[in-house]
C-alpha cells in the first residue's frame, strides 16, 4: 500500500522531546534500505506558498497557504508499505514525530469508487 506521509510542524512539544528525536540521516538510511521509501521532499515555508483557485471563470492567485494555522506542512514522503503498522513504524522513527506530527494518508486508486 502506498501512503502519503504529511510532515507537519507542531508547537506543542518539549525540549526533552526534541532531544529524543533521531537524526533525519538515520531515518533516511533506514527507509531507503528497507525499500519502503518512494520519494520525499522538504518544503519551503508557507510564506513562500501561493494558493490558486478559479471561480466564475476567473483565476484567483493569493499569497500564502490554503489554510492559516499554527501548524504547517513542512514536507512529505511517499511510502510503500505492507500495511498501516509498517507505515506507522516508519513515521514513529522520523525526527518530526518528536517535534511535529505526521499524518498517514493512504492513496486512493483511480479505478476504485
Amino acid at each position, binding site marked *: *500500500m502506498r501512503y502519503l506521509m504529511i510532515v507537519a510542524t507542531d508547537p506543542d512539544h518539549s525540549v526533552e522531546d526534541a532531544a529524543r528525536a533521531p537524526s533525519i540521516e538515520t531515518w533516511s538510511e533506514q527507509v531507503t534500505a528497507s525499500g519502503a521509501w518512494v520519494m520525499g521532499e522538504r518544503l519551503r515555508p508557507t510564506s513562500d506558498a501561493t494558493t490558486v483557485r478559479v471561480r466564475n471563470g476567473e483565476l484567483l492567485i493569493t499569497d500564502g497557504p490554503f489554510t492559516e494555522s499554527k501548524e504547517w506542512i513542512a514536507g512529505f514522503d511517499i511510502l510503500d508499505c505492507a500495511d*498501516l503498522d*509498517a507505515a*506507522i513504524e516508519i513515521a514513529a522513527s522520523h525526527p518530526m514525530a518528536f517535534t511535529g506530527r505526521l499524518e498517514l494518508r493512504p492513496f486512493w486508486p483511480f479505478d476504485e469508487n
Partner: protein
Amino acid sequence: MGEAAAPALTAALSTALTEALTSERLRIVANLIRVTRDWELAEDCVQDAAERALARWPTDGIPDNPAAWLTTTARRRALDVLRRRHVEAEKLHEIEALAPSQASPAEPEDPGPYGDDRLRLLFACCHPALPLAGRVALTLKTVAGLSTREIARAFLVSEATMSQRLLRTRTKIEHSGIGFRIPEPHRLRDRVGAVLAVIYLLFNEGYAATEGPYLRDELAEEAIRLADLLASLLPDDDEVLGLRALLLLQHSRSAARMSVAGDLLTMEEQDRGLWDREQIAAGLASLAAARSTGRPQGFYRLQAEIAALHATAATPEATDWARIVVGYDALLEHRASPVVALNRAAAIGFRDGPEAGLAALDAGIADSPLVPAVRADLFRRSGRFAEAAAAYHEAIARAGTDAERRQLQRRLDELTNLS
C-alpha cells in the same frame, strides 16, 4: 432464522448447533477474514452455515462433529461466492486449505498463541487508528458475534446508526491498510493494552452506564467472555489476567447491586450473601496468576487488587481500608485520574473517618458529577446533615441516570428523617 424448520427442531439439535457455534464461530470468521479480507463475507458465511444446519439437520440428523460441519459448510459457501466473483485460483486454494480436518475441528494447525487468527482479529478490531466507538462496536459484532440490532440497543442508538458505524470502521480497516497480523514484539504490550481498553470500556458501560438503564449485565458479561478469550490466547500476560480478575471480581456483586424495588445499593448496603462466590474465586485465581508473572503491577492488576480486598471482606466493617488506600495510592501513581483520586478520598474517609475524607477531597480533586455524591456521604457520616443535604441536592441534579438519582434521593430522604 430458519423458521420453516422450527417444528422439527428438537432441543438436542438446537443445543448441538449453539455449542458448535459457540466453540467455532469466531475461529471460522477469523480464518475467513484473514484469507478473504472480506469481513462481511466471513460473517455472512457463518450465518449461512447456521441456517443450513437448521434446514438440514432435522432430516439428515445431527452430524458426528457439528463444529466441523459448520466450518466446512461456511468454507464452501465462501468458495462459491468468491468463484462467482472470479477471485484468482490461488486464493481459492488457500480457503480450501483452511478448514480443520473433520477429525479434530478444535485443534487446527496449533501455531501457538500468536499464530491464532482470533488474536489477529482482536488486534485488527481494536487498532488504535480506528475511532474508539467503532472499535467497541466492531469487536462486539465480529468477535463476540452480537447482531447489529443487539449492539445498537446496548448503546442506545438506532440500528441504522450502528450499521453505519460498523461500515465506516470496516471501511477504514480496508482503506487505511490495517493488517490482519500480530503486532511487532516491541509494540505488543501497547497493542494488547488497546484490546484491553476496549474490553474495559465495554465492561464499564455495562457495569455503570453513563446514560439510560444503569446496569446492563449483557454488556458486562460479553466483556468477561472477551477477557476469558484473551486470557486463553495470552495466558501469561499479567495485564490480561489482571483485567480478567478485575471484571470477575466487580461482576460478582451483580445480583446484590439492586434492591427488589429496583434501587441501586452501595457496597455497604448490599447483601453479601448474594455475591457470586464462584466468580470471586475465579477472579482471585486470575489475580494470583497475574501476580505470579513477577511483572510490576499494571493499571488493571492494581484495580483488581483493590476489588479483591472488597470481595474478600465478610462484612463492610471487616473491609481492610488501610490496604485499599495504599492500593489507590499505587493506582494514582501509575495513572493519575480524577475518579481514582475521588475513590481514594472516599477510602480515606472509611480508614480515618469522614473529616479526613473531606480533607482529602478538598486537597484538590478535579470537579466531576461524582464529587458531590462522595462529599454528601462524608458530610452525612460526620453528622453535618445540612451540608450533606445541600451536597445530595447537587449530586441529584448532576446524576446521569435515574437509578443514581433514586439512590441519592433515598439517602437524602433518610437524612431528612434523621434530623
